[in-house]
């Protein structure tokens, strides 16, 4: 028989038991939907976060204390202090645009009888270039403010302390019983890392060190560059300056870490891809279960149609004719299931993209892979039932009751 005729015959056989065929497809539909959904949403999320990171800037890097991420957070090793920042400034590295040091502490802030525990960032006016906050009221720190007791409130904190839609500029708040004048209210500039502007308060770095934290430690120095292509060279220069300043030899491990966002972006992409593959693999289990369901139904179908197989053999069907017919039926069943799964997966991805505000990305290779896998599942799990049908002796099949 010609492939077109076999295909027509297979579709007809499946339509005869439409409900059963649909239920059998369900496992495949769920599996393929899950694979498409997870891979596409995963890619959308990666694109979203990459975009956010890029908007924050791939043109900068940061320096944190400690030789690795563990010591950065555990606070071990020699702290970074303002002298380190000055050493970098004095090196006059031409590619450096801005140097912005940050410190962080947690304190209770009070005003108008309201108290709230918040993160307090100590920063310099240079942070404006790097973090791009949206100023709702007032101004960001200026050069004149480096030693003033002023505070820029995050929009959420301002709302909590002074009420909704109230301009608190000119008011004052207390941090550790020290009065600070409110000079501005900031909101996140839309950048991923700038979002802390909503829920934190920012004061001049040196005020934080002297009057609030009581130490000179700097949590991080962020440095932006003019030419991103020379980022790595600039990082090497800065590392060398810091090693000199902190008396660390070339062959020693540095007690600080330089991280560029390009590297962080790569790491993030790798982690997400691994996670996507891992979760997609788990959805593959649904395909396996779906495949077993297909095999089960095809076995039932072979048993039910034993007499039909006998009749087909009586009028001249050869072994390969019966084998192909049942294999095609099984493959058509799972392929249709796969195609439905793709539509559901793409539709679901679109919905999630709209609701979560991430880019709608459909991966064509994943779709092609999904169709191939669903067809393959049909062929693999159809082989046993099809062989069982093809191996029936005509006389046994005709006599079957």
């Amino acid at each position: 028989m010609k492939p077109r005729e076999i295909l027509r015959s297979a579709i007809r056989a499946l339509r005869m038991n439409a409900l059963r065929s649909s239920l059998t497809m369900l496992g495949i539909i769920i599996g393929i939907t899950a694979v498409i959904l997870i891979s596409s949403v995963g890619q959308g999320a990666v694109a979203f976060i990459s975009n956010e990171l890029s908007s924050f800037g791939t043109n900068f890097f940061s320096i944190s204390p400690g030789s690795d991420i563990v010591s950065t957070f555990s606070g071990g090793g020699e702290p970074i202090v303002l002298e380190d920042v000055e050493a970098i400034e004095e090196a006059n590295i031409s590619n450096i645009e801005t140097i912005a040091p940050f410190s962080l502490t947690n304190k209770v802030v009070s005003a108008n009888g309201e108290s709230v525990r918040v993160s307090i960032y100590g920063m310099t006016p240079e942070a404006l270039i790097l973090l791009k906050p949206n100023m709702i009221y007032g101004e960001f720190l200026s050069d004149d403010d480096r030693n003033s007791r002023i505070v820029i409130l995050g929009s959420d904190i301002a709302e909590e302390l002074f009420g909704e839609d109230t301009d608190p500029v000119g008011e004052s708040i207390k941090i550790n019983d020290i009065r600070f004048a409110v000079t501005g209210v900031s909101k996140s500039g839309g950048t991923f890392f700038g979002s802390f502007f909503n829920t934190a308060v920012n004061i001049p770095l040196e005020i934080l060190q002297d009057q609030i934290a009581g130490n000179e430690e700097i949590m991080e120095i962020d440095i932006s560059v003019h030419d991103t292509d020379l980022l790595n060279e600039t990082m090497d220069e800065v590392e060398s300056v810091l090693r000199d300043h902190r008396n660390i030899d070339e062959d020693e491990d540095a007690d600080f870490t330089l991280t560029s966002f390009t590297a962080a972006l790569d790491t993030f992409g790798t982690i997400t891809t691994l996670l996507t593959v891992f979760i997609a693999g788990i959805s593959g289990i649904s395909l396996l279960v779906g495949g077993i369901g297909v095999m089960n139904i095809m076995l039932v179908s072979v048993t039910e149609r034993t007499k039909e197989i006998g009749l087909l053999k009586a009028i001249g069907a050869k072994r390969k004719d019966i084998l192909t017919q049942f294999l095609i039926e099984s493959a058509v069943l799972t392929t249709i299931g796969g195609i439905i799964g793709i539509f559901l997966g793409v539709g679901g991805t679109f919905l999630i993209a709209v609701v979560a505000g991430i880019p709608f990305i459909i991966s064509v290779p994943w779709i092609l892979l999904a169709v191939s896998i669903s067809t393959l599942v049909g062929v693999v799990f159809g082989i046993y039932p099809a062989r069982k049908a093809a191996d029936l002796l005509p006389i046994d099949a005709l006599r079957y009751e």
Partner: protein
Amino acid sequence: MVKKDAVLINLKGIIKRYPIGIDDFCQALNGVDISISQGEFVAIMGPSGSGKSTLMHIIGALDTPTKGKQFFKGKNIASYKEDHLAEIRNKEIGFVFQFFNLLPRMSVFENVERPMLYGGVPIEERKRRVMDALEAVSIADKAKNLSNHISGGQIQRVAIARALIMDPSVILADEPTGNLDTKTAYEIMNILTELNNKGRTVVIITHEDDIANFAKRKIKIVDGKIVSNTKNKKKQS
């Protein structure tokens, strides 16, 4: 086609045993010798369990004998493999069964067309041949009907059309009228008689005398052995 009177089917010493359990068997045929020539109309008769259906299955290459020689057009096909036998069934034998003759929920046209799909007949020729065959059994107007939407008599007519479609050497009918009322049964037998009159070899299995009387020769089988093999003197028409 083999010329008239040439031997078409020749069975010699056919024994057929079916295993029952592990070490027992049932002997369905016990040394059967039959020769059927081109253009004959033979009725194989016998009570229930006599082995007549087994005999028909072996004649129709649906089953193979345990022992004996089975010649079809002069070739011993007793040891042929299943695919080879399928080719013989497709091209040389047209079957009409008592039950489950047609593929369910397929049209009359598609049922009759089916053997040609396995025989590799081109599509244009298939259409012409199906309509010719349906006209030959006066059921061309039902071509588009689904096979489960026609009467028992019509089903048998469609089955005969299908049996004829590959222009086979012999038509084998297993109790073709067993499910029909007398009038319809006689109509079916008249179609088979007409085909035989045009030179087609017809072999039917029946346990009814009046049906067997349409044939030119009657073979009686009891307990797997042929007990009589005679010309039919009471032939109906």
